[in-house]
Every structure is written in C-alpha cells, then in structure tokens.
C-alpha cells in the first residue's frame, strides 16, 4: 500500500516536471474576438490590421514562447461573443481573450474571464464600467468620459455657452452625455437639450431639426465609429453649419477611417480624442506609414487599440518570463507604461484602465486630405467616471 503511494507521488512529480517542461515550448494563445462582419466590421478590420502589424514588426516569439492568434468573428452579437470566448478558453486553452468591438460583447465575456482566470483585453469598447466587471480585464482603447470631460473644459473656455447633446442610446453614449454635461455645467455652460437616438440604423434628420430649433452654440455629438459620416452629411444637408452651429464631440464622429470620404462638410469640426493619424510624433509617422503599406487604408483609433494591446501582452510576457496564467499576467500588466503611436500611455494599476493624453483637434485639409489636426493637449487623463467614484 505504502509502495503504491510512493509510486503515485513519483508519478505526480514526473507529470509535474513534464507539464512545466511542456509549457516552456507551448505557444501562448490569444483569442481575438472581433466583429469582422456586420455593422461594426470596420472596427474589426482596423484592430486586426493593428494586431497583424505589431506581430509583423516584433516577431511572433516572445520570452521563448510563440504567439498564436486565433481570430473569431462575433459580428458584434454578444451571445456569439460569449460562446466564442467560452470555446476559446475551454477548447483552445487561450491565455488571453482580446478584441471586443462593442460594450455588450465585452460585458458578456467578463464572467468567463473571472471564472477561467484568463485575461480579457479590451481593444475597442469604451464604456467606463467594463473594467470593473472582472479583476482580469485590462483596456488599451479608451473610455468615453476621457474624451468628453476635456472637451467640456475646452468648450466652456472657448466661448461656447449653450449646447445640445446628441448621443446614441446605449451605454457609451450615456457615458459621453453625462460626463460632458456634468463638467460643462460645472464650468458655467448650459445644456439646453439632451437628445438620444437609437443605436441601430438611425435617421438623424428629425433629431437634428430638434437640435437646430433649440438654437445652440454647438452640438455635442457621440455616435459609434462608422456612423459619423452619415451624421455629418445630414448636418450639412439641413444647413446647420451655415446657421453657425458648431459640431464638437469625442473623436468617434470624425473617425480617421471615414474622414477622407466625409467631404468638406466636416471642416472645422472640433473633437477631443486620444488618437489622430496626424499625431506629430516620429513613432506615429512610422506607424501610419507601415500601416498604410500593409493595408490600403488609414489607421484609426481602433487600430492603435489593437496595436497597443499586443504591445501590452508582449511586454507583460517578457516581464513574467513567459508565464501566462491570469494572475501573473494581470499583475505584470498593472502600471506598465510605454510610448504608443498616440503618445505616452500607461495602465492604471488600480483600475487596469488606460491613462493617456487627450488632444483637442480640428478637421483641416492637409495635402488634399482631411485630417484631425491636434492643437491642444490634456496630459495623463485617467477615466473620470472611476475617479469620480472615489
């Protein structure tokens, strides 16, 4: 009997040795869940391109372990996201689930990250609450409040007194509306009307008419990346630009991906955001050049979310010496800081959310193409929603 136990112990030790030896060569798998089809496909396309570019530039091996990216399409439908995340964790044994084009998708996967002790790296979705839903969530994109609060400060200081807010009726829109309005009122401004419109296939015309009737100095608008073009088109069609109403907002409305096709209607729109393809740094110029070479479109703020997400994974793995379990990896990610194409950024050790500069930009024409040209910087912005909770 005793011999049997000894044998078992020996066997267990042997197995342990085997597994630890195996892990040194095993690839680190990253499940990339993105909307590659459907309405949010442009988000998926940009992030995928950012991820691919990073791997191309930095090789596919880090800390002695090969990086294997498994791409899945959830078409931004949350129950797809959940099933895919579950399969990736259970069957493919991924160490990281990444991507998440929309907030509901990121939220749906959060309980799985907690249960499976797997990192959930949010590369796009921008609602503040996401990182609070699991201790394994980190974010390399942005929060809406990060852009909206500096925007309110800027508007109040630059002669804008009366504002109508127009947002898509879902969590990021509510975040943008609330954080902007609170700050703007604090600074002495007035929000004369708050308009919300449905997220899916909205017709902005009637809402724009309501906004125009209120005769504001400016309209603060948030629509998800992809709908900005339609909004600006209808804005000028109604002649609101000629009525002297300014468009301000978080940068989603003048998304770099769609900006060149928006036409001169958007000239002069002022937005606050964390990334512009026009950001004047050597790092960004190299990034935009390499990106355009690999793809035939311009990188937008989604793409840097993917690019920086990969950087975070690579650097965290270097720090842990290739150990990829959830607890070790998230500990390594906390507090990490680096120079991104968007400027200096870091991961807040307390909230695992991103800290970054927010830039004020104005749409201008450069060499025949429309760009968001930065003219002022707010440095080291933490997510204001979480900061306010303390």
């Amino acid at each position: 009997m005793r011999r049997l136990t000894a044998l078992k112990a020996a066997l267990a030790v042997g197995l342990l040795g085997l597994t630890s030896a195996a892990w040194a060569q095993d690839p680190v798998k990253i499940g990339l869940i993105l909307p590659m089809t459907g309405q949010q496909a442009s988000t998926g396309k940009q992030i995928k391109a950012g991820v691919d570019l990073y791997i191309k530039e930095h090789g596919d091996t880090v800390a002695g372990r090969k990086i294997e990216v498994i791409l899945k399409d959830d078409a931004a439908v949350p129950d797809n996201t959940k099933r895919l995340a579950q399969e990736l964790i259970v069957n493919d044994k991924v160490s990281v689930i990444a991507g998440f084009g929309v907030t509901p998708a990121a939220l749906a996967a959060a309980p799985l990250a907690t249960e499976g002790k797997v990192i959930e790296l949010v590369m796009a979705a921008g609602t503040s609450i996401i990182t609070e839903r699991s201790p394994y969530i980190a974010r390399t994109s942005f929060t809406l409040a990060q852009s909206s609060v500096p925007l309110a400060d800027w508007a109040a200081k630059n002669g804008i007194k009366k504002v109508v807010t127009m947002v898509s009726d879902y969590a990021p829109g509510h975040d943008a509306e609330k954080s902007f309005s609170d700050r703007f009122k604090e600074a002495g401004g007035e929000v004369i009307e708050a308009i919300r419109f449905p997220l899916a296939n909205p017709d902005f015309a009637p809402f724009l008419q309501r906004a125009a009737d209120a005769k504001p100095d400016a309209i603060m608008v948030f629509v998800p990346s992809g709908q900005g073009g339609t909004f600006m088109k209808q804005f000028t069609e109604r002649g609101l630009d000629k009525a002297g109403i300014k468009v301000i907002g978080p940068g989603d409305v003048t998304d770099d991906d769609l900006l060149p096709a928006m036409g001169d209607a958007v000239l002069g729109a002022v937005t606050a955001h964390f990334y512009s393809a026009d950001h004047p740094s050597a790092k960004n110029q190299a990034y935009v050049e390499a990106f355009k070479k690999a793809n035939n479109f311009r990188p937008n703020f989604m793409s840097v979310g993917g690019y920086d997400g990969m950087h975070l994974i690579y650097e965290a793995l270097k720090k842990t010496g290739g150990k990829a379990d959830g607890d070790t990896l998230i500990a390594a990610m906390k507090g990490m800081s680096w120079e991104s194409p968007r400027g200096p950024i870091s991961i807040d050790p307390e909230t695992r959310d991103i800290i970054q500069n927010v830039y004020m930009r104005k749409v201008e024409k450069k060499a025949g193409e429309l760009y968001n040209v930065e003219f002022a910087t707010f440095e080291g912005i933490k997510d204001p929603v979480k900061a306010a909770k303390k």
Partner: protein
Amino acid sequence: MSQQPPGEEIARRLVARASWQPLEVLFWAAALASIYVLPGRHLILTEIAILGLFALSLDLILGYAGIVSLGQAAFFGFGAYAAGLLAKYDLVTEPLLALIVSGVAAALVGFVTSFLVLRGSDLTRIMVTLGVALVLREIANRYAWLTGGADGLQGVEIKPLFGLYRFDMFGHTAFCYALGVLIVLFLLARRIVHSPFGLSLQSIKGNPVRAAAVGIPVNGRLVAIYTIAAGYAGVAGALLTQTTAFTSLSVLDFERSADLLLVLIIGGTGYLYGGLIGAILFKLMQDYLAALTPQYWPFWIGLLLVAIVLIGRERIMSWTKPIRALARRLDWRRSTTAVAVEGQRP
C-alpha cells in the same frame, strides 16, 4: 386487404406512420451518445439543440399548418427576456420552473397575436409576423430600465439546476439540460402532429375551405397551434438565456427569424426532423466556415445555400437511400407486423 372497410385501412396507415422508425431511434441514440462522445463540443451542441427546438416551433406552424412566419424571433426573444428577468430579480430561481414560466408567457403572447395571423393569406402573414417581432424589439429597446436596451440584460445569474447542477464553463450541464428539454418537447410535438388534432391541421394546410366544409374549426385550430409554437419558441429563447446567463436585443433581431427559415428550408418542413437536421447542418457549416475565414464566411454560406436549392433537397436525400434501405431491412417490427397481418386474414 381490399375487403377491409376504407376507414380501417386509413387508420392502419396512420398508426404505421406514427410508429417509431429505426432511423429516428438511431438519431436520438446518437444525440444522447454525443453527451459522452463529444464532451469538448458541448457548447456548440447546446446552440444546435436550442436552434433545433426553435426550428421545431416554426415547423409546427409552417410544416403542419401552413402559416409562413418571418417573426418567430418575437416569441424566442420574449422567452429569452422573461427567463433573464426571472433570474435577475430572483423571481423564480429554479431554472426548469423558470423555463416553463417563460414558455407559458411566450405562449400567451402567441395566443394574443395569433388573431392577427388568422386574417389574410401568406404574404399578409409574413408582414404581420414580421411586424410583431419589430414592435417587440423596439419595446425592448425603448424600455432600457427593464431590459438593458442596447447594452443587453446585465447581471443575470442562473442558479444550479434542481439546486444540484451548476451551469459549468464547459457547457456540460447546459447541454444535458438543453438536450433533455428538446427531447421532451419533441416527443410532445410528435404526439401532437400524429393526433387527430395534428391531422386536422394538415388538412387545413391542404385546403382550408374544404377543411371548414367537413367540420374542422379552422380558426380555433390555427390559434391553438400558433400558441403552442410560440410556447416552443419561448422555451428555446429561455434556454439560450439560461445557458449563457445573458441576453440582448439580438434575440429579437430580424436576422434570427430569417436564419430560422433558412434552417428549416435546409432541413425540410413537415416531418419534425427538418428543423433539427437543418440546425445541425447550419451551425456546423457556420462554425467551420467562420473558423476558416472570419471575414468572408457569409459568402460561403450564401453559396452553399444556393447550391443546396439548385441541386434540390430531394436529390440530396436520394443519396442517403442506401442507408434508409438498410434501416428498413433492419426494422425488426416490419416482419412481425407483416406476419401478424397475414395471420389476421380469414
């Protein structure tokens, strides 16, 4: 046999049609075996079981009563939200009980809306069912304080099944649960369609005017089957919520109703298994193609659908003829019943 009165002959044939075929037994044996044989695939199998049940609900009205619907997602979504809300606010904590409550709630919605479907012909019905689904979707979108709106219903926590089996991450509990519910409801559906009630539905499908002329209460029967089918769809939706602990507006999407019709077209209507076979093919095809090309898989799905329609399901079915012939030869009852019939002859 020509000496027998025609009524008896018809009855004998109907009983024969309602009896269990060897292939059916094989089908369910395989389904049960998958619990042990494919433990790594339980997540997708759960989705297949749910989609299969959902398709069964459409088959009940389309395949047996001839009601074309493009809005079955209305009941699916209603059941899904009902189950989600019941769990979120701890109203009914036992999943199976919550499932039944959700199914009944969806059936009630089906009952109320069935009166709209009675009017008009196929095209009107498509419009009406589509409209009902759109209205429900917008209601769910509008009342975000209750449903979570575009963000989906957050904070749903499903308690262990019977207080014993936790819904695990590998989907084992979820699959056994979904399969169990599917089997029970399938048996019920099988009983329904082979009953006199089911036969009357088929005669309504064939010719409503003549059916009314021979004394079948057409409207009453249609209301009944529409209500039952809505309940089935509601149970399928509730299963989805319970197995994913989450629900969102996508359960009420038009795409869900449209996909459902595709599933049924792939599998074939009017023999109950069409929805199940269609669900298996559709999901596996989608899963396989989406893994191959995450960007362009809808293209291949579309191409395959066109191919299936062009080749014709009958021709594809004819490829399985050897299997069916073999199954018939293996049918142990065939010889015995034949002997029994011989023996009864005077």
